[in-house]
């Protein structure tokens, strides 16, 4: 009997767990450790954040789904990894801390044969003073369903003021110079704008985008080029076009260094310091690893050996710290296997990228201001599935090494970014990008295959976004035919 432990039940962890459970015989165990009782289809949090969906529309209870799939579910958070065991336990294990009510704070030791780290990110609000929506209560976020609910109620207050004819300033974007997930903020700003326009309240709302991207349309992946009218045109052109059309001003290359009530302080790449007043602000926090620790057999702390300084787990990537000019697609991991402990893998946001995708930049004061690499959604799920397949093949004796790969430098991503909800008047930007990590050796100039790198905005995109919402919730609940829905 073999036991796979999966730390985290988000997109990548849930995908890995459900496929491993399907592919393995009953004698083997698949265990999911996650502090959450509900699964959240995060891309639709945007619509919760504007009051167009309820929390129940984007979440479901994990326990019955895992029971149906024969997966052991522990509502707990992982504390430490012991990849060599310790003096009294010879086998490798993890320690977890139960967070469900009946077992609150009870720690447990779980031995494993294979470990998948899919913990996702820690929302590092503390990186920017005043940014935490739960503690500081200055800004809102849409990173969780509860955060999105809060955002919606705060937005309603702004709408009430606009209805009274009061002018309001809305600020949406990233809350730190090292943020990722610009796409979520992008979707939110356009959904808010669409909602206000639909309500006839747009004229009194001044909407501003603030981002750590050095140019609009960077999205943490160095931007992209798509074919239009015989040209390879940069995403900067299309992004600036959309912001202009919707009358949204933009501030780019910005590191938000302090948030106060109704005022944000930020630094630009040229080193200058500025302030921006707001009545409503939705600012995405930077991500960090969840703070897992690791110990060897002698109980010596080896956290820095298997985790990068940002808390993400090291895998088969090139972490030599090359200069931007020397970056290669092959720097990116393919098997997602830790090189010190071959039975440990990391997927989704939890793996440590070798470097950024966007060009690293610092302000004249030395402050890093650049987006960190996005690795959510489709690539996360594909990594989860590939690693599950590799581990199942190793358990079944087909191979002693990983049989499947999921390199972001060799896979594409389809992304649908909502720009306003409505069956006939909604729009969304439908994008495909191949490969996700630009490969300038293979595709000189653009870094990507122009046949598979596309983008357009329209109602069709909104229909696809709606379809993805229902399709992925169906798939995640393992309803009939779930395996037919691609990642």
């Amino acid at each position, binding site marked *: 009997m073999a036991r796979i432990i999966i730390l985290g039940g988000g997109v990548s962890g849930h995908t890995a767990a459900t496929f491993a459970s399907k592919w393995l015989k009953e004698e083997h165990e698949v265990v999911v450790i996650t502090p959450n009782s509900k699964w959240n289809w995060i891309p639709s949090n945007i619509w919760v954040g504007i009051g167009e969906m309820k929390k129940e529309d984007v979440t479901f209870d994990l326990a019955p789904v895992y029971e149906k799939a024969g997966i052991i579910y522990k509502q707990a958070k992982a504390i430490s990894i012991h990849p060599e065991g310790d003096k009294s336990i010879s086998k490798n294990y993890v320690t977890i801390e139960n967070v469900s009510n009946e077992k609150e704070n009870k720690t447990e030791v779980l031995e494993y044969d294979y470990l998948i780290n899919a913990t996702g990110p820690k929302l590092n609000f503390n990186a920017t003073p005043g940014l935490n929506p739960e503690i500081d209560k200055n800004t809102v976020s849409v990173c969780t369903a509860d955060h999105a609910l809060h955002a919606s109620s705060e937005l309603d207050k702004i709408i009430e003021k606009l209805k009274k004819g009061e002018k309001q300033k809305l600020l949406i974007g990233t809350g730190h110079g090292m943020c990722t997930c610009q796409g979520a903020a992008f979707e939110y700003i356009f959904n808010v704008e669409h909602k206000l326009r639909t309500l006839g309240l747009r004229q009194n709302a001044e909407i501003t985008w603030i981002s750590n991207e050095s140019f609009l349309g960077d999205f943490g992946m160095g931007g992209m080029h798509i074919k239009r009218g015989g040209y390879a045109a940069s995403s900067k052109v*299309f992004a600036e076009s959309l912001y*202009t059309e919707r009358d949204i001003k933009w501030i780019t290359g910005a590191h938000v260094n302090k948030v106060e009530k109704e005022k944000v302080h930020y630094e630009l790449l040229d080193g200058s310091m500025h302030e921006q007043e707001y009545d409503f602000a939705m600012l995405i926090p930077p991500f960090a690893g969840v703070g897992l620790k690791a110990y060897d057999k002698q109980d010596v702390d080896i956290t820095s050996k298997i985790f990068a300084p940002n808390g993400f787990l090291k895998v088969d990537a090139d972490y030599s710290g090359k200069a931007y000019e020397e970056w290669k697609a092959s720097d990116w991991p393919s098997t997602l296997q830790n090189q010190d402990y071959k039975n440990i893998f990391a997927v989704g946001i939890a793996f440590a990228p070798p470097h950024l995708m966007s060009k690293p930049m610092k302000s004249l004061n030395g402050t890093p201001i650049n987006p960190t690499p996005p690795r959510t959604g489709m690539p996360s799920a594909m990594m989860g599935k590939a690693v599950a397949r590799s581990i199942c093949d190793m358990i079944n004796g087909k191979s002693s090494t990983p049989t499947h790969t999921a390199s972001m430098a060799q896979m594409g991503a389809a992304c649908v970014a909502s720009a306003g909800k409505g069956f006939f008047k909604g729009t969304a930007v439908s994008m*495909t990008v191949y490969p996700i990590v630009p490969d300038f050796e293979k595709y000189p100039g653009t870094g990507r295959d122009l046949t598979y790198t596309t983008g357009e905005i329209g109602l069709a995109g909104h229909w696809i976004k709606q379809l993805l919402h229902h399709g992925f919730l169906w798939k995640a609940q393992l309803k009939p035919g779930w395996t037919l829905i691609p990642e």
Partner: protein
Amino acid sequence: MENKHLEHVKSYTPQNGTMVPLGGVKFLRTCVLWQICRFIAINITMTKLILKSHH
């Protein structure tokens, strides 16, 4: 007037240096018949991308 929706764009601002859509482009974005065609085309593109990405 096909550019009435651009009244807010002022000269010598960053917005003024961008490419902006005119009425025809905006109409097609929510034209149901055209968007049904685009829906099919985008889905085909995405399916090909997914098939290319699995290793």
